[in-house]
């Protein structure tokens, strides 16, 4: 479904990704792990069309999507949940969902149902300004917003970063709920979560893919994952 083929990406003269390749099958969850500065976020930003690779290509459903702008990728079914947890703070939660529904042409009631399906408690906050939500609630809202329309591939950047354990469990539950329904590339440093949800793990080190783990027994072994970092 998604194929990243040998991409090199640079910020100015500083090369960040070196010949990175990965493959994702329909309905699977691929986790990208690595230390800070390994190039994980850069990889997602490149897939999302925010950066153009110096070399290599990105394919989605067999078509070349290299360098296509984010708005076009959205309508192909690719959603990007950034790590900054930035919702539209001055809008209400309902309006945050409405804005996604308006873009995808999905009726607002249906869009709201999708968000409430993954997080029923959101019903109490619909008329609250999204800026008043906690970090975890914002993250859930962003994932919910990404579910509006017909998403096929979810790109999620560090969904549990800086969140309390109880909220991490909630996000893990939501991601588990989504597993199998759509494909996802998730950047994550929380190794127990990775071992719980991943179908494939790609280890990035200094911009290079150093290891790809496919085997369930390897993925479940967090100490092995830690060693790979």
């Amino acid at each position, binding site marked *: 479904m998604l194929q990243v083929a040998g991409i090199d990406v640079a910020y100015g003269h500083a090369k960040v990704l070196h010949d990175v390749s990965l493959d994702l099958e329909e309905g699977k969850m691929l986790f990208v792990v690595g230390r800070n500065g390994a190039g994980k976020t850069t990889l997602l930003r490149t897939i999302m069309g925010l950066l153009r690779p110096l070399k290599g290509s990105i394919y989605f459903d067999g078509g070349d999507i290299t360098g296509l*702008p984010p708005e076009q990728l*959205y309508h192909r079914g690719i959603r990007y949940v950034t790590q900054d947890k930035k919702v*539209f703070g001055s*809008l209400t939660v309902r*309006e945050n969902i409405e*804005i996604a*529904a308006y*873009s995808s042409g999905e009726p607002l009631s249906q869009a709201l149902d999708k968000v409430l399906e993954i997080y029923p408690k959101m019903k109490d906050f619909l008329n609250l300004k999204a800026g008043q939500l906690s970090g975890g609630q914002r993250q859930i809202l962003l994932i919910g917003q990404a579910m509006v329309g017909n998403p096929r591939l979810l790109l999620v950047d560090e969904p549990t970063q800086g969140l309390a354990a109880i909220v991490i469990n909630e996000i893990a539950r939501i991601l588990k709920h989504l597993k199998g329904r759509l494909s996802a590339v998730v950047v994550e440093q929380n190794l127990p979560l990775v071992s719980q949800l991943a179908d494939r793990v790609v280890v990035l080190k200094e911009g290079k893919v150093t290891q790809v783990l496919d085997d369930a027994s390897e993925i479940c072994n967090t100490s092995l994952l830690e060693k790979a970092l």
Partner: protein
Amino acid sequence: MGNVVKERGLVLEKTFVAVGKQLTQAGVGQKALELILIGVVFLILVPFLGAHRATDFAIFCIIVLSFDLLYGYMGRLSFGHLLYVGVGAYTVGLALRYLTTNPLLAIVLGIVAACLAGMAVGAITVRIAGAAFALANLAFNRVGWFLVMSPLKDITGGENGLSIRNLSFWYVNFRNPTFRFWFVLASLLLVFLFLRIFTSSSYGVLLRSIKEDEKRVRFLGYNTQLYKWVTFVLAATVAGFGGALTALNYGYVNPNTLDVHANAGIVFACLLGGSGRLYGALLGGIIYMLITNLLPVYFQRWEFFLGVALLLIVFRFRGGIWGGLEALYSGLAARVKSGSSKEGMSR
């Protein structure tokens, strides 16, 4: 090219659907009440200011409303908005001189001309943001002013301006101040109603999202350049309507209509009332006009008070007067709510 036209068509279609939905869903009674209240405020002003001055106030409010769409809702500060007011005004003047004797047709032509000017300038300026956007618009405004003053002075009258002929046609008589007042008041209410519906629709939510974080809006599948362009054109069109009415209210157009320095007045009125709030734009328009019309009678250096007011807004009341009133209301409502819940608990 074909794709761009198709995409623009889709944006327009989506806009109409969003506005139409809002029109059919939102309370008609509430909107009617709002329009009546605005009308009453202007009627109250007439005995104090006279019909001509009150008409002037209403026209200024239309221009501030158009600017608020651009700045208050979409977050794009322009120092060249008066270009479209000037285009509307001069088109009315020239149309009534050379093309038609019907002022209503001239107004339509003024609106169309401002719309076309907005389409051309917007196609260039919406690609940039921040100070560059403000200054690029100022530059276009300056170009418009230069065209009126110099290369086109044979038809625009240059510095001397252009007196308008054919102010009356059939029952439409713009020589009559009472008629002008009612016509402009009806126009203001129409513009307000349209913008009220427009900004309350999903499109309005989109504009506020662009104001907050344009990049994230792109992640949600929006070609923000197109939406910004449509909004820019709409703001220019409404400003052109204001310009057309200005020309008919004075029976005269001069280069001051598109004087770049006068843009500060629109920005000031919008900030004073509270940007991003249609009522704020109305209130700001009225108060700014009161200040600039009445203070000079009592104080020679009345601009000092404008400066102090602007400083107060920037440092203390970012939401302007209307924003301050909203904050006061929600504070009082919260106090009443907590008071009644305490009372309930003590019982």
